[in-house]
């Protein structure tokens, strides 16, 4: 499909716009909002339950409908993660990620969305996060398969 060459990036841009607008509307781009949710022994703010609940509900229904198709609209096949193992890298990585998330209140989406309205924190967190990705690539990544299956996450 020739039109797919252009349709795919345009669809991706549209999905990104929805995602970023949703993130900011939900409050997740404000670290204090996120920490208000994680701070269960303080003045707990359960708002993020509604963010995750709304997102998972819509995505579950949407995915079910979409995955009935043989292929996506503008690509040859669905690229879904194939790894099903609950192993040490998964849990160790999630643990480390959670610690960083709980310290500062940023996960990767909101950290990148900071570029929409940069402030002093952007200067520290965002380069450090990208350095963390790079650090993984030159350490653990080098010992693994050169191209992992299902990297898109």
């Amino acid at each position: 499909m020739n039109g797919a060459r252009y349709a795919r990036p345009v669809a991706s841009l549209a999905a990104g716009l929805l995602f970023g607008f949703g993130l900011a509307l939900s409050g997740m781009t404000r670290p204090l909002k996120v920490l208000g949710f994680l701070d269960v022994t303080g003045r707990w703010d359960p708002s993020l339950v509604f963010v995750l609940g709304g997102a998972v509900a819509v995505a579950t229904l949407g995915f079910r409908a979409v995955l009935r198709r043989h292929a996506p609209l503008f690509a040859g096949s669905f690229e879904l993660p194939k790894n099903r193992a609950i192993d040490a890298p998964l849990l160790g990585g999630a643990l480390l990620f959670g610690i960083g998330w709980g310290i500062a209140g940023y996960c990767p989406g909101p950290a990148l969305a900071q570029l929409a309205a940069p402030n002093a924190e952007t200067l520290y967190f965002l380069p450090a996060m990208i350095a963390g990705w790079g650090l993984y690539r030159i350490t653990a990544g080098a010992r693994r398969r050169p191209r992992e299956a299902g990297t898109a996450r």
Partner: protein
Amino acid sequence: MDTFTPWSALAGGVLIGASAALLLWTTGRIAGISGIARGLLSDGAAGFAWRALFLVGLIAGAWFYYALAGSASHAAVVPRARPDFPPLLLIVAGLAVGYGTALGRGCTSGHGVCGLARLSPRSLAATLTFVGAGIGATWVVRHLFAVQG
């Protein structure tokens, strides 16, 4: 300012879920931000355009919200830097988020939203782990060391 906001939270969540469904429907890809962004660093030319445009959209989408909400309410909706939050903690946290999401193959969006939507036990395990770790880390920072800001 940071009180319970169920309606905006739910509406924002719905948009995030719709975005994930749209991306899978059109491109066949999972809307995991850390995976999409990391792919820019490692994928070379293949997949560069869709990844870059998704992230450009993400930033522009947040910008649109700030522009709309700011002019509608005259209130400061743009996230502000915490004046008393130590930069060193931001750097340590950033490194942990980067390395952790690379090692664990996903973040809040990939495991938390898309993984749970696919009913993946692997993503459920990751999500429970990072939410638990987040609660623990927040407690340590806020209540043990009394860092607020």
